[in-house]
């Protein structure tokens, strides 16, 4: 019956067989199409897609290294690594996230500061990836969370290493602080090896020695599933911790300086004049480096940046002041070395000095009478130096200032160092388009006028005189060590230049500086100890140009902003000096009465410390 039309139903098998034949071809074609595509994916693109499946499954996770420690010269730790605690929730394990969050908030006694959970997004699509809900909880909160961990499914505590600045404000300007690398920093060449989310030094030693401190990240290759759950560790490269940095700073001495300063604004630096090592360096007002640890709050940052006293600025290296009378040693050295005067050259001071139509006054109204160089430095006679300034001229003065290291950066390993200013004729012409006035040289010769120095530069001048003529590079960092104490790099004292001033002339200045403290009428009388071993010079730097021909008003009546800066620079002992100290009190008033007592406390503190340490060693 096959092949014949069924009369009853009208079924024509031949017609349908032809159709089915066509459909068989079509179906085969469809299968061929699928097979072709499968062949393309599996055979042609197989390797490529295998790679993509590997990328799916294997994640490289960074292991952050521990940052190096910072220590003082005696091995006391100044910056340590501490643990900070974050709370995260693993959505898959928590099940009811809202409930867990509520429990977490209620558990902590509101009086002690409840755990504030930020509203985190839990819809990442990776239910095993922890979502951080609060940062930096304190230890009380941590204890509460840990003891109740059974009631808090899915809550995990992450330990994040943070910096602990043990001395807080006291060393903030030296040590600086750290923070997350910013996008603008990432774009810079200096930070080429860094990745976003890295912690970098933002200021101070943390910034300038970041390369040593940061260490090397390690990594692990982890097999993860689609939810981000770690299944296997396939390989691991251990992180290399950062190097420790040893400073020349003596923490005890730093504390002595800090305490001696009390609440005044200003800076103090203690340096070893024979090595250039910086033993202490403070700047006030200061800030607490620890504030920056987990990101500083907007309010606090605003408070710091809008404070008119600029606590973020390190006055010791970035502050620029007129040197005042402390500059006189430079003028004297220049005049001696140029042969314009000898130590016996006498000049009469009647209290005034006329140049052109201007009259300049000596600080002592009645005048000092006949003075030689020694007495002029001891009593800080202005008129004597007006004469020397006139003899030398501005450019000779600038030349000698340059020899003493003024007018350019000292190269200390801290960011933000300033150059100061050594004015010359050319400089004035370039800057103001005006020629140099004779009276300006007169101002300059007592450290006023255009002249600006940083405290560090000024201290170096006195170190050079103290050590007999060697200009050392200031050394804040003593060395770099590995974690187990192996020395990687040393920073020995570095002579920058031997200044071209004869030993004889330097000795004249040294003796004069001794006299300024220990002889009658010496301006630095405050430093007169029974050992008679301190040499020093006061300075009172005018903030605004007082009309020279008028009488100075009483110190107490001048508003704070217009008050003079009080300066004192000294070194001790006279023979074989071991420390040089600079103290500057911003708007403090008179150098001899404000800055010198602070210096005295530092000197006394230093020698007491030495004595105590020696006793301990014996």
């Amino acid at each position, binding site marked *: 019956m096959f092949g014949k039309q069924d009369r009853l139903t009208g079924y024509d098998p031949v017609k349908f067989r032809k159709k089915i034949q066509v459909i*068989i071809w079509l179906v085969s074609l469809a299968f061929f199409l699928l097979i072709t595509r499968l062949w393309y994916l599996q055979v042609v693109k197989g390797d490529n897609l295998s790679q993509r499946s590997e990328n799916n499954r294997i994640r490289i996770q960074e292991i952050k290294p521990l940052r190096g420690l910072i220590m003082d010269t005696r091995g006391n730790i100044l910056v340590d690594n501490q643990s900070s605690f974050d709370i995260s929730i693993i959505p898959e394990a928590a099940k009811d996230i809202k409930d867990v969050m509520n429990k977490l908030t209620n558990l902590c006694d509101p009086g002690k500061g409840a755990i504030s959970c930020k509203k985190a997004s839990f819809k990442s699509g990776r239910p095993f990836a922890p979502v951080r809900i609060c940062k930096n909880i304190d230890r009380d909160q941590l204890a509460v969370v840990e003891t109740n961990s059974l009631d808090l499914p899915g809550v995990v505590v992450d330990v994040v290493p943070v910096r602990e600045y043990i001395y807080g404000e006291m060393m903030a300007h030296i040590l600086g602080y750290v923070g997350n690398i910013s996008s603008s920093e990432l774009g810079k060449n200096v930070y080429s090896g860094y990745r976003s989310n890295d912690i970098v030094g933002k200021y101070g030693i943390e910034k300038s020695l970041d390369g040593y401190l940061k260490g090397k990240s390690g990594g692990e290759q982890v097999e993860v599933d689609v939810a981000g759950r770690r299944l296997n560790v396939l390989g691991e490269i251990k992180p290399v911790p950062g190097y420790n940095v040893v400073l020349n700073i003596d923490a005890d001495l730093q504390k002595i300086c800090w305490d001696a300063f009390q609440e005044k604004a200003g800076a103090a630096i203690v340096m070893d004049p024979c090595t250039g090592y910086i033993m202490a360096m403070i700047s006030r007002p200061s800030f607490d480096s620890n504030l920056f640890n987990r990101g500083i709050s907007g309010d606090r940052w605003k408070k710091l940046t809008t404070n008119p006293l600029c606590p973020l600025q390190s006055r010791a290296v970035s502050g620029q002041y007129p040197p005042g009378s402390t500059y006189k040693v430079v003028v004297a050295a220049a005049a001696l070395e140029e042969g314009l005067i000898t130590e016996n050259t006498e000049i009469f001071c009647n209290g005034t000095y006329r140049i052109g139509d201007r009259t300049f006054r000596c600080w002592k109204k009645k005048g000092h009478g006949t003075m030689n160089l020694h007495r002029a430095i001891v009593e800080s006679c202005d008129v004597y130096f007006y004469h020397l300034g006139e003899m030398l001229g501005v450019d000779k003065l600038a030349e000698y200032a340059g020899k003493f290291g003024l007018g350019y950066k000292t190269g200390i390993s801290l960011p933000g160092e300033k150059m100061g200013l050594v004015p010359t004729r050319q400089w004035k012409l370039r800057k103001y388009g005006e020629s140099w006035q004779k009276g300006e040289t007169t101002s300059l010769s007592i450290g006023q006028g255009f002249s600006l120095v940083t405290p560090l530069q000024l201290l170096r001048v006195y170190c050079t005189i103290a050590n007999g003529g060697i200009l050392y590079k200031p050394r804040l960092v003593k060395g770099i060590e590995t974690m187990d104490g192996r020395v990687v790099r040393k920073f020995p004292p570095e002579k920058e230049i031997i200044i071209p001033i004869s030993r004889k002339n330097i000795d004249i200045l040294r003796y004069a500086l001794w006299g300024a403290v220990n002889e009658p009428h010496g301006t630095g009388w405050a430093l007169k100890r029974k050992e008679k071993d301190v040499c020093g010079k006061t300075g009172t730097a005018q903030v605004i140009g007082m009309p020279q021909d008028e009488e100075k008003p009483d110190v107490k009546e001048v508003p704070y902003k217009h008050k003079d800066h009080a300066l004192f620079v000294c070194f001790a002992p006279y023979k074989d000096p071991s420390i040089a100290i600079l103290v500057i009190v911003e708007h403090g008033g008179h150098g001899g009465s404000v800055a010198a007592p602070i210096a005295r406390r530092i000197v006394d503190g230093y020698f007491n410390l030495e004595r105590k340490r020696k006793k301990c060693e014996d």
Partner: protein
Amino acid sequence: MDILILSGKGKNVKIDRRLFANFDWVLLGLVLLISGIGILNLYSAGYNLRVTEEHLYTKQMSWILLGLIMMVIAFSVDYHIIIRHAYLIYVVSVLLLFLVSFYGNIVHGSQRWLVIWGFSFQPSELMKLAIIIVLVRYFDDNMEKGYYPANLVILLTIVGIPFFMIVRQPDLGTAMFLMVLFLSMAVFAGIGRKVLIRLGLGGMIFAPLCWFFLKDYQKERILTFLNPERDPLGAGYHIIQSIIAVGSGGVWGKGILKGTQTQLRFLPEQQTDFAFSVFAEEWGFVGVFVLMFIFLVLVLWGLKIARYSRDLTGALTAFGVTMFVFWGIFINIGMVIGIFPVVGIPLPFFSYGGSSMIVLMTGVGLLMNVSMRRFILQP
């Protein structure tokens, strides 16, 4: 009940021995072979389960058993009797769809499941077979009359009611699947070229209109199909992960239980819609080629049954069921290898799914029915 194991129209209550002699063992073997591979594959796909998930291969075995029972019922009763009850079957199926839209369970935002005595059942799967049966009946009845506009309206109504009800669930994939089945059968039954052109034009006007009625996620799927990388973690995720799984299998595959895409669960829906991707990843091109070959043999075998069918009813029935299987294979595999959008059509006998398995087995029963009765003369 005396209609069991009888032939003809119930007048001769007599067991025909030829029925056993002509039983289609090849068809049964092919279906069981594919289902067996499917279970092995499900075992691997469910090997690394989350707590919230269920290992489905044992359940699939029970669905196969249930399906086999349905298969026996479907081939025992003469297909003419079944086709005679086509409208009843159709109406019951439509009613079930109605029930779903009122009482159905909502899973992933669509209402497709009806829960009866603790069992979830998908009436839209049943509708696939019901539409075949009703179309067989309609074409069978109206062959000689030709396809006048009035007939066309009736046809479109028959297909349109379930189509719109399934679109509303929403399950665009299954609704389109009904359309594809209808068109395949219409072409086979000999619907005129003119009518086809008219239907085609209507479709072209209708399709853009449909766009406005689509839910956002459906639009998203179509756009993502056109460019999967446009949203790699969202809508494009399924297809990208599936292509990676298939391709990374390479020539020889990663080995059973060793497919990283599967075992680490980067591949979504691996026990259901994307079961084929699991197989492709773990068995490679070689395994896929063998499986595709078995599938092709199954489809050709079905077409052979249609071709050697004794009458139009049998030919249409066999053809319809074969197309059911064929389009399932073509659309599902096309979907997991990125040549069709993700539409949620299961791979016949391979993807997990009770409704799908039972309905398909019943369909195979119908095929056997036609196959074993082709030598029996009609009284």
